[in-house]
């Protein structure tokens, strides 16, 4: 007689071992981005094409800076997990692992670069 229930044996045995959490994060970040992005597109679109001083002044203000920081963080986490899904569908074995690591790393590089820029503009 097995003492573990069927459910207990099944928990955590999805393809990625964390599929539900992954899917839930994509839903949460999608809703967050649905609110953030129209605002950010307006901020960025208005700043693009202006001179250096105007761009610095825009992103030195609290609201544009905070929205940009939030968009960077949430969108890059959303991208990393989305790219991971795509890679897992098309690649296998070590190639898959290498590509997933590369995608996640790229997302953090973009995030860090943006944060650095925002902090430097703010100071």
């Amino acid at each position, binding site marked *: 007689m097995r003492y573990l229930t069927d459910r207990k044996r099944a928990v955590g045995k999805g393809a990625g071992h964390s599929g539900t959490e992954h899917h839930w994060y994509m839903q949460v970040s*999608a809703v967050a981005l649905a609110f953030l*992005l129209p605002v950010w597109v307006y901020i*960025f679109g208005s700043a*693009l094409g202006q001179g250096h001083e105007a761009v610095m002044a825009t*992103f030195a203000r609290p609201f544009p800076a905070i929205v940009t920081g939030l968009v960077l963080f949430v969108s890059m986490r959303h*991208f990393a997990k*989305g790219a991971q899904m795509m890679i897992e569908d098309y690649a296998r074995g070590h190639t898959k692992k290498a590509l997933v690591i590369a995608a996640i790393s790229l997302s953090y590089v973009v995030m860090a*670069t943006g944060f650095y820029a925002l902090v430097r*503009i703010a100071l």
Partner: protein
Amino acid sequence: MLTSILTRITGNGLIVGTMLAVWWLLSAAVSPEYFAVADAVATSWFGDLVFTLSAWALWYHYLAGIRHLIYDAGRGLDIPTAEKLGWACIIGSVVLTVLTIVIV
């Protein structure tokens, strides 16, 4: 079918526009000279192309994402409604892209 794979292509493709935007922001933070270089690229025909395509990709992915949330709620899964939602994504994304170009 087409609208589904387009969601994936637009979502992952958006990393290109994001990288250009972040590089442009970084250059502004570093120095006026560096900004002149990045701004020249970002406002050139190449930059216009990347940001215009990114705007469309963003709005398409945005609408397709909302459609996904509707499907996940267990609604709109019958074929006529799903077809209509697909067209809404395609037409809506073009309309929103034009609006974006006009407004910003």
